[in-house]
């Protein structure tokens, strides 16, 4: 394709929104890490990552995205292998074994596994688009999301693993899965994580627990796997009794729906037992809940939330000025250049600055969804939709966390936070969106 052609069909709005986010990111990372006059080496590292990102983005934009239809699955398996290898040869940073390190150069395979994951799902959805209303068409997509989650949880990096779930669900939704299945799955997730978190929350508010027999029973049942099994058996018996009663009374009941409900209740209980006893450690549960009540973990994550809110709130409408944020410059927030970078903008540039960043993200995601609708084929549509969802959920989770309305999960804000791997993979994702957009009319 001639250069002219590309230039004509290029999505300038998306491109320049991305560039602005990156530029703002670099500015505020500088503000977050600078102490005194010395330029920190991690800032120059970020600049190098931007350069690398542009290179890879141009490649992702230049090749015809149809080749990913061919190599998507291979890329996906390659990313799984990398995730497996990092469990054995990876370097451990902040408790998670998630880095490959070669001398000065190191990267996080979990950041790069998101795009192959979206490839694989998009390929599957394209091929099976007409059968997606069937229950059994969910099996392969389930495997596609389950394997990377399992491997990333092994590092363990709870946030990066769990963010794949909403991306997966929205892609299935766009792909045409029945509402019933998605709702059941949502319910399943709520049961799985809801019960353990509820119990943890209640253990800090004992007064509610003492007054409720049902809650007490549930908390007893999930406190140990053996009691959990008994609990599940009880539910099993009750369900089957109800089922036979209903048949006896000649109530018309759909066997499929009955099975789904039973599965939800029993499976949900099994997995909530597992989550309670094995997956989430006590401090992780506290971290996830601290946004509801910083009192739960006042010396750890609760403190971060309070400090983040103070930084944002004290920024006001116009902010305190670049490099003048007192909370930021005194270093009251750890990890401010990675997970909590939004609080720096909000403090120093106020509502206007933070609002601008939000707006840029809104534009990026909006354009991404528009590109999905206008794409020339199903593969392009699903790919673009998946990438947009990725940005959407990272933005919700990160910005929500910084403002104290989402749990602390340690997810960065793509394109904006410090971190080379995340930046490069986000830029490649934007490159793919531009690619799909520029080829929307080719036959």
């Amino acid at each position: 394709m001639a250069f002219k052609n590309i230039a004509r069909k290029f999505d300038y709005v998306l491109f320049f929104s991305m560039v602005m986010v990156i530029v703002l990111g670099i500015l505020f990372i500088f503000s977050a890490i600078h102490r005194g006059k010395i330029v920190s080496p991690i800032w120059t590292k970020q600049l190098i990552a931007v350069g690398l990102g542009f290179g890879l983005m141009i490649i992702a934009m230049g090749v015809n995205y149809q080749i990913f239809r061919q190599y998507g699955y291979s890329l996906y398996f390659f990313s799984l292998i990398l995730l497996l290898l990092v469990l054995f040869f990876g370097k451990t940073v902040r408790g998670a074994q998630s880095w490959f390190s070669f001398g000065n150069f190191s990267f996080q395979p979990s950041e790069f596994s998101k795009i192959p994951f979206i490839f694989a799902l998009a390929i599957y959805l394209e091929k099976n688009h007409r059968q997606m209303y069937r229950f059994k068409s969910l099996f392969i997509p389930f495997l596609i999301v389950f394997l990377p989650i399992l491997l990333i949880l092994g590092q363990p990096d709870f946030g990066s693993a769990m963010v794949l779930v909403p991306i997966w669900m929205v892609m299935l939704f766009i792909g045409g899965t029945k509402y019933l299945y998605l709702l059941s799955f949502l319910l399943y997730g709520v049961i799985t994580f809801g019960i353990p978190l509820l119990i943890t929350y209640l253990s800090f508010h004992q007064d509610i627990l003492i007054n409720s027999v049902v809650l007490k029973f549930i908390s007893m049942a999930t406190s140990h796997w053996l009691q959990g099994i008994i609990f599940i058996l009880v539910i099993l018996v009750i369900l089957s009794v109800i089922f036979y009663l209903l048949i006896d009374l000649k109530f018309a009941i759909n066997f499929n729906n009955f099975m789904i409900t039973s599965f939800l209740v029993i499976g949900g209980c099994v997995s909530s037992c597992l989550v309670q006893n094995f997956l989430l450690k006590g401090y992780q549960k506290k971290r996830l809940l601290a946004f509801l009540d910083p009192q739960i973990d006042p010396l750890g994550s609760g403190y971060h939330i309070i400090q983040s809110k103070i930084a944002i709130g004290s920024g006001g409408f116009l902010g305190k000025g670049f490099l003048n944020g007192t909370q930021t410059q005194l270093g009251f927030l750890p990890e401010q250049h990675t997970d909590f970078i939004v609080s720096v903008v909000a403090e120093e540039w106020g509502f206007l600055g933070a609002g601008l960043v939000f707006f840029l993200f809104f534009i990026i995601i909006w354009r991404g969804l528009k590109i999905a609708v206008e794409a020339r084929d199903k593969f392009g549509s699903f790919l673009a939709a998946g990438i947009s969802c990725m940005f959407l959920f990272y933005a919700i989770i990160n910005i929500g966390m910084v403002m104290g309305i989402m749990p602390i999960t340690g997810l960065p804000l793509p394109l904006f936070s410090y971190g080379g791997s995340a930046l490069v993979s986000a830029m490649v994702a934007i490159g793919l969106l531009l690619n799909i957009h520029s080829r929307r009319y080719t036959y």
Partner: protein
Amino acid sequence: MWQIESNRFEYQRFKNRAFLVKFFLVFVFFVLYLRLFQLQIINKRYFKKISKNNCIQILFQQAPRGAILDRNGVVLADSRSAFSLLFSPFNLSDDDITKSVNKISDILDRDKEYFIRKISFQKRYPFTYARLMENIERKKMFQFAEEKPNIPGITIQTETVRYYLRKNFASHILGYIGEINADELRDRGGECKQGNVVGKIGIEKIYDSELRGIEGGKQIEVNAVGRELRVLREIKPVKGHTLILTIDKKLQELSEDALGDSPGVIIILDPRNSEVLSLVSKPDFDSNIFTVPLASKKWNHFFTSLAYPLLNRAIQAQYAPGSVFKILVTLAALEEEKINLNDTFFCKGFLTCGREERVFRCWKREGHGKQNLIQAMANSCDIYFYNMGLSLGVRNISKYAKEFGLGEKTGIDLPSEKRGLVPSSEWKRKKIGDPWFDGDTLNLSIGQGYLLATPLQIANMVCAVVNGGKLYRPYIVKKIIGDKNHLIKEIKPYKIRDIKISESTLNILKKSLKSTVEKGTGRAAYLKNLSIGGKTGTAENPHGENHAWFVCFTPVEDPQIVICVFLEHGGSGGSDAAPVARKVLEGYAQFLNEHKGNEYILKTGKEKNGL
């Protein structure tokens, strides 16, 4: 618009659902803006006030470590209050910090670099305090309190520090504690953090999670110069759990005195469940040294000394068991019916073996003459056991050795246990490359050659033999007790396996071991008023003087304790190890008298279990 597949209905559905996603996007961003508006416009004044005048800092308080008691409730280790020096670099100029560091290093008499390093680490987290020094002396504490106005940034906090009631007592069991290092931090991320104190060896390490308690702390509002305005929230630290050991303090003392300063091991086990009643390994160390700050010169001595005082010889060193192993060979031969009680061999002092007619000698050069089984055991006649070993073969011997727990970890709740080695012909072909010779069998049958075992393995093997074939896992922690004497966990004896031993085999063995002490090589351990069975061992080794072994149990009829004495390069079993065992037995007999013949262990074990 999809061009290749022109299914209108599908494209329409896709478009509809994409529209819903867009709707979701708008909704989400609306909520995010709303929240931003709430924080920055509506609550602006509130947050501005907080950020302008006050800053919140966090002061962590370490939890007191749980106590460690012996089986009768006697305290072996606990926590006592002490003073820690903390430092907050918050809002201090570099000049101020340098000034403070100079003062601090003057008072504490220590290099500035140490403090500079700690403070520069803390600069990355200015909202918490650097823990400069723990357990500072009272005198120094007063000095700091006086000088506080001249040393900006310091805080003195009352905390607790671990202390062990007696120096060099049960140090290999208890272990010691120290600041967490990078490896431990990685393994226990989330549970511990930089600057925390963790157990390094012994049960301090194995039961660290139980002992450490829950760290507390305060959120403190400070003004612009770092002065404390008020405490916003406080979480009281929670003391760790109390551990009750299987160790009996009196027996432990007795063994430590009996062993004196000679390098070696004394282990006392209860053969009915393999509870460890005492475990001494010498040379040892004073666990308290490691909680005293600035004593790193003394620590170095422990880490570099060629006597390896930190090595727990009872489980971390492996030796040839020598003639003690003959107990097992006899048991195997009787069980496999390769020998009878009345079978005799003539000992002329040596035996030749193999095509090259290699000469294998008895320890007694002039020979024992005609020996039956009981005599051979009592005199530890090597020739008799060579013959026994040849008729058993290496396969049988190593089978029995493995059954009785040699060549595998006993599973005791202490860290870094060694597994020992039970050779077999396959093992030799694989590791050394040579076939198994009859000469190897001869060496094996008197406990020499490739065979290696830890003293604890030998003690536990004797337990399993004298209790009639029940191999238990030895253990040291009996109970874990939480707040308000609430029993959290009781560790029950764990039987690894049952080994079939016939009644007659057991009787013959006990009889022969009893006669070893009454009139054989173990005479030095003989006591009139106790019925004792035992076996000596003298293990040749390439590193120097022989190792001396002595294992014994009492009473023979219904054994209640098993004692294993091991002297590293200590000479011979009969003349060096047995007298040490005799001292322990004498003391034990005295305890029995004090309890008027009642069973000592069971009685004392039950007295204060309520705690």
